[in-house]
C-alpha cells in the first residue's frame, strides 16, 4: 500500500494545476489579465464634450480603453500652464486644442509625432490642416475647420451693419460683446487691425480702433470663455460680437444670427481644431482613440453640432452652416489665416497692453 506524503501531494497538485491551466489557456478559455489602457483627454465644454462622450460610447463598443475627460478652464491655452507645472509627469494624454495651442505645445517639444500606421484616417485629411514640427513630422490630428467671425443677433438688430466701422455709431453703445485679447489668441485685435489696413504684425491700427470703441462705450462685455459668450449673447443684453464658430453656433440654435464673414473691408479667420498626443501617453491607445474620431463618419458626427466644418473631405457639413465658411474661390477674398506662431509670441505683450490701455477706457 502506497502512502501519500506531503511532498508527493504537493508535487501532484502543482502538476495537476499546471496541466489544467495549460489545457484551458491553449484554446483561449483563460487569458492572462491585461489592464485596459487609460487615457486622460482634455476637451472643451458645451457641445464639444457632449459629442465627444457620444462618440466615446460608440468607440468603447470595440475598445477596452478607459477614457476620463477634463474640461478646458477658460481658453485652451490654460492647459499649457497646467502641463508645465507638472511636466514630465503630466496626467494628460490627449489634448483637444487649436492651432495656436498646437504651436505652443510643439515649441515645448511635448508632443509625440503622429503614428500614421495607427492613425490611418490622417491620409485623407488635407495636408495643409496638419501642423508639423521643424523636422516635418506630422504632430496633430485635425478634426475641425473652425473660424472666428463678427456677427449679430438679427432679432435685436434688424438693420445689422455693413462694416465694423458702423459699430462706432451711438446706437451700438454698450452692445458689443468681445473676447479678452488673449482669448482667440488676439484675433479680435487682428480683425480691428485689418479693418484699418493693418494685420497681426502691424497691429497698431487695430489697437487704435479698439481704443475708439472702448472710449465711446461701445463695448458692453469682455468675455473670457465660450460659455461666458454664449450666456452673454443669450441674455439679449448684447447684439453684436466677435467670437468663434462654436459660440455663434450655440447662439444660433436659439436666436437668428447673421455671420458677417464677407464684409468688403474685413475678413473671417480660419483655423483648425483637433487632437494631439503628449509624450508619456500610452501611445497606441491614444492614437487609436484619435483615429476613431478622425474616421470620416465620426468626423461628420463630431462637427455636426459644433458649428465647424469636418476635416475629412467626404464628411458632410451641417446644412445650417451654409455661408459660414468659404468656397475655395472665396478664400483669397474673405478668409484670413493668421500667423499663430507670431501671435503666440506677442500675446504676453498684448495682454499687458490691454490691461494698461483698454481696461481703463472701458471702465470710463
Amino acid at each position, binding site marked *: 500500500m502506497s502512502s501519500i506524503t506531503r511532498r508527493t501531494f504537493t508535487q501532484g497538485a502543482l502538476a495537476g494545476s499546471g496541466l489544467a491551466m495549460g489545457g484551458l489557456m491553449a484554446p483561449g478559455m483563460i487569458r492572462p489579465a491585461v489592464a485596459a489602457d487609460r487615457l486622460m483627454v482634455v476637451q472643451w465644454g458645451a457641445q464639444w464634450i457632449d459629442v465627444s462622450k457620444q462618440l466615446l460610447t460608440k468607440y468603447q463598443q470595440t475598445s477596452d480603453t478607459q477614457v476620463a475627460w477634463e474640461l478646458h478652464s477658460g481658453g485652451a491655452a490654460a492647459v499649457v*500652464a497646467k502641463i*508645465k507645472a507638472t511636466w514630465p509627469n503630466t496626467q494628460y494624454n490627449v489634448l483637444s486644442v487649436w492651432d495656436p495651442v498646437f504651436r505652443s505645445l510643439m515649441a515645448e517639444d511635448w508632443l509625440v509625432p503622429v503614428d500614421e500606421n495607427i492613425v490611418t484616417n490622417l491620409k485623407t485629411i488635407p495636408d495643409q490642416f496638419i501642423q508639423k514640427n521643424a523636422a516635418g513630422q506630422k504632430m496633430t490630428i485635425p478634426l475641425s475647420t473652425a473660424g472666428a467671425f463678427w456677427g449679430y443677433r438679427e432679432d435685436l438688430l434688424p438693420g445689422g451693419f455693413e462694416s465694423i466701422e458702423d459699430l462706432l455709431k451711438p446706437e451700438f453703445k454698450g452692445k458689443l460683446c468681445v473676447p479678452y485679447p488673449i482669448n482667440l489668441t488676439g484675433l479680435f485685435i487682428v480683425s480691428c487691425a485689418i479693418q484699418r489696413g493693418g494685420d497681426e504684425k502691424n497691429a497698431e491700427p487695430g489697437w487704435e480702433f479698439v481704443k475708439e470703441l472702448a472710449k465711446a462705450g461701445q463695448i*458692453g462685455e469682455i468675455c473670457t470663455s465660450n460659455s461666458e459668450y454664449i450666456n452673454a449673447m443669450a441674455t439679449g443684453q448684447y447684439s453684436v460680437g466677435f467670437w468663434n464658430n462654436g459660440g455663434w453656433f450655440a447662439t444660433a440654435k436659439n436666436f437668428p444670427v447673421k455671420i458677417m464673414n464677407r464684409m468688403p473691408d474685413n475678413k473671417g479667420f480660419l483655423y483648425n481644431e483637433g487632437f494631439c498626443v503628449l509624450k508619456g501617453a500610452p501611445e497606441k491607445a491614444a492614437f487609436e482613440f484619435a483615429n476613431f474620431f478622425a474616421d470620416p463618419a465620426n468626423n461628420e458626427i463630431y462637427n455636426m453640432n459644433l458649428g465647424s466644418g469636418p476635416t475629412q473631405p467626404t464628411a458632410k457639413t451641417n446644412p445650417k452652416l451654409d455661408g459660414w465658411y468659404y468656397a475655395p474661390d472665396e478664400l483669397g477674398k474673405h478668409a484670413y489665416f493668421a500667423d499663430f506662431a507670431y501671435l*503666440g509670441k506677442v500675446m504676453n*505683450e498684448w495682454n*499687458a497692453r490691454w490691461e494698461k490701455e483698454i481696461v481703463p477706457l472701458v471702465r470710463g
Partner: protein
Amino acid sequence: MKRPGLTASMLWPALIVILPLLFGPLLVLLHESLKPHIAGRVGGDATSALTLENYALLAGPEYAQYFLDTFRIGLISTVLALMLGYPMAHFIVRRASPIMRRILIASLIGTLFLSLIVRIYAISMTFGSLGPLAGFSRLLGIAPTSPSVAELMVVLGLLNTTMPLVALTLIGTIQNINPRLEDAALSLGAPHWKTFVQITLAMSVPGILSAGIIGYAFCISNLVVPMLVGRGFVLFVSNLIYFRFSEVANFPSGAALSIVMMVISLGIFYGLLHLVRTQWQEAGK
C-alpha cells in the same frame, strides 16, 4: 505642572506639514518672479540670469490702479458685510427665540455650502440689466447700462459670500459680552442707544475687526466674483495673476504680481492686527 518641551514637540507635526506646503511653494514663487520670460515660451527662462524686470514692469500707475481697485472694492464689500452682519448677529444672540436662532444660524451656514458659482450667477440674473431687479442700480444713481454696474455686481457678489462669514464670526463675539453689563447700564438710567453704543458695540470692536479681517481677506483674494460678473471691466489683482499663469504662460510676471500682492496684504493685515491689539485689546476682555 508645565512641560514646555512636550508642548514644543507637539508643534512639530504641524510645522513639518506647513513648512513644505506653504513656505516651500512661496520660495519657488519668489524664485520664479526673478526669472526672465521669453515671449512665446511657457514659464520663466531658467538658463538666464535672475532679474527684477518683472517687478519693474508692474511699477506703472495702471497697475497701481488695479491694486487700488482690489483693495477699495474689497473694503466696500467688507464694510457693507459688517454693517449688515452685525445687526443680524446681534438679533440672533440677543433677540431671537431658540428656534429662530437655530433657523438663522442654519441658514447662514447653509449659504456657505451653496456653490459660489450658483450664487454669483443668481445675482447676475437678478440684478443684471434684464433681471427683475435691474432697476436696483438706479437707486444708487447708476444707469443699468453703465460700466459702473459691473462694480456694483462685484460688490453684491462679494457681499453675498462675505456676509454669512462675518455674521457667524460676530455671533461668537456678541455672545461673549456679558448681558448683565447692558442691564446694569440700563438700570442706572442709560438710554438704550447709549448702552448699545458704549457697551455692546464698544466691546464688540475686537470681534468686528477680526470678522472684518477675515471678510477682507476673502474679498481681496477673490478670483471668481470679478471674473463672472465684472464683465471684463472690473479686474482684481487675482484675475491679472490668473491670466498670466493660465493664459499667457508668463509665470514670472504672475509670480511677481503674487509676491507684491502678498506683501501689501500682509502689511495691511498686520497693521490691522496691531491696531486691534494696541487700541482695543483691553476693551475686548
